């Protein structure tokens, strides 16, 4: 029984580290699902999947910022925000607010 719990825990952790496309479906709780979504938007593969990334969409970015600030410690949030600016070209979006509107 303890083994089952342990392997379920292992499956969830690998699922969170590797992402949905790598491990297949693994049940996650609400908080983990939100964290996973936020991570996927930033670090997921930009392969044009329907879920999509943050892209240049202001509402999605706002939601994303809300999620990471709610669920992750502030030190990590800073790194992720910096990554988001660099990786997704959000900086350009912020400089051109009317394009997104």
């Amino acid at each position: 029984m303890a083994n089952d719990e342990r392997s379920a825990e292992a499956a969830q952790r690998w699922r969170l580290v590797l992402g949905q496309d790598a491990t297949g479906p693994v049940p996650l709780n609400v908080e983990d699902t939100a964290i996973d979504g936020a991570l996927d938007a930033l670090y997921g593969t930009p392969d044009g999947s329907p879920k999509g990334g943050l892209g240049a969409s202001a509402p999605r970015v706002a939601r994303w910022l809300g999620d990471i600030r709610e669920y992750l410690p502030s030190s990590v949030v800073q790194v992720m925000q910096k990554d988001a600016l660099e990786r997704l070209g959000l900086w350009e979006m912020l400089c051109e607010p009317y394009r997104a509107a």
Partner: protein
Amino acid sequence: MLSGRCARILTEHGEWRAERAAQQLSLHCSSGVAPLAAAQWLEGFLQGGGTLLAHSDTLWNIVNGWLLSLGPDTFTELLPLLRRTVSTVTAPKRRELGEPVAHGGCAALGAAQTETAVDLARARRVLPILHTLLAARPLEEVSHGE
């Protein structure tokens, strides 16, 4: 991180054998090492690669053990760093890394870990000799104590 990268390069070029890589990995990803340092070492070891880890059960098991040894808060804190590292690994390689999870390989690992648990019956068999060697209390006292 640099140390992790060096370990990977040495192993990939055959300078290090697999056992040496496994030894280094378990040294750097053990519970005694600061979790952040371990995650950074892994970043160097994995970044843009992942082949070594995907093709060696030993290495995978070490990382699996380390992941499970982290407390929930620490895990959440390190998760973004790990996810960022993993995002540099190609999708097919990531699937290889996730394969043991998809096929319930973690259960096998759990079984392997119980095997390494202390076998009390076998441990007791050594006690008389230890008592002789250490000239400690008489054996009866101990067995009554049990």
